[in-house]
């Protein structure tokens, strides 16, 4: 039997199915040159692997790790408006049911005013005063203006994540979901809510997110 170089290499690498491997083995048994070739393949593999293996054991340079740790959550591409409305309606329905069942009315970070949900307590304070750069129990990573010209902010707290937009009454909750900082369930992968929330923010957004200066100005003006 003739054994072509690819087949012999695949045998040396353990890539052949048992039947093909047996056939190659029979050929090797009758031809010392083939056996030597298999040995050379394996030696080369060990040598090349051995040359680069220490690289994986080196400490990763700080600048690379820092790049990943410091990465902001990217804003995904905008989706068509029709989808956004459908989602907004579905989200609103979930919001009313979810928040009323999950948190109880007028307790914790949420209150009701004229049938709408508003931020309360520390959440409202954070939305009023905290800049995107600040760390704390509540984080407010992104601020923006929506298509109606209202200031909106993405927030993340222990019990609740979401988007709030400022109107005459206060911070109206446009979207909420279970908080990322608190207990996570196995159904909810870490990070997925961040990305989904940012996608929703992007859908509501008119123009770009506020930069640090614009955010200070908005805060100084009471988010109006």
């Amino acid at each position, binding site marked *: 039997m003739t054994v072509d170089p*690819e087949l012999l290499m695949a045998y040396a690498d353990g890539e052949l199915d048992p039947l093909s491997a047996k056939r190659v083995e029979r050929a090797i048994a009758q031809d010392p040159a083939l056996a030597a070739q298999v040995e050379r393949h394996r030696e080369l593999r060990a040598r090349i692997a051995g040359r680069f293996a220490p690289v*994986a054991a080196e400490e990763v340079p700080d600048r690379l790790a820092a790049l*990943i740790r410091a990465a902001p959550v990217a804003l995904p591409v905008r989706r068509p408006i029709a989808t956004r409305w459908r989602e907004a309606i579905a989200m609103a329905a979930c919001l009313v049911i979810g928040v009323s069942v999950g948190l109880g009315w007028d307790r914790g970070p949420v209150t009701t005013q004229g049938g709408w949900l508003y931020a309360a307590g520390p959440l409202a304070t954070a939305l009023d005063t905290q800049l995107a750069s600040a760390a704390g129990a509540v984080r407010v990573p992104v601020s923006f203006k929506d298509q109606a010209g209202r200031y909106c902010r993405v927030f993340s707290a222990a019990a609740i994540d979401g988007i709030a937009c400022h109107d005459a009454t206060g911070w109206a909750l446009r979207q909420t979901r279970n908080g990322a900082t608190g207990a996570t369930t196995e159904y909810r992968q870490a990070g997925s809510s961040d990305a989904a929330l940012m996608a929703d923010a992007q859908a509501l957004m008119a123009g770009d997110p506020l930069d640090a200066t614009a955010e200070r100005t908005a805060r100084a003006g009471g988010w109006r």
Partner: protein
Amino acid sequence: MAAFEDDLLGLLPRLRRFARALARDAADADDLCQVTVEKALLARAQWQAGTRMDSWMYRIMRNSWIDTTRARSRAAQTFVAEAAGLGVGSDGGGEARVALGEIDRAMQALPDEQREAVALVLVEGLAYKEAAAVLDIPMGTLTSRLVRGRQALMAHLGEAA
């Protein structure tokens, strides 16, 4: 930190190893890593959770490397090439050091399409099927590039093996 970033951090040692096998020296390899990570972070919306992140990252790195080498070969046609033989393993000494330089030089001498096949299978330990998927080529193409790459390496390293 989210799972995406955690997984990416965990892959960095392997990505650096792959980069070292592709790039011409350690500095270029770390630049390649940086570009790859930046691209991955920008493209994270395209990452599908549940699929293999290592394959996805290898693909991004390999494509970035190809972009760099193409840009470089265009530049080389325009400008006078740098002095040949710029140091691989220029400091230190001893037998081991010389041997390392030898393998690096043999890898450098491979055509890109053979070097990437060798790097994925021999250095990264991917199965043929996985390597073919990363390179987006049929299995037969992968094995023929791999066998030619290995024969060239054997010829280069010949007596020293």
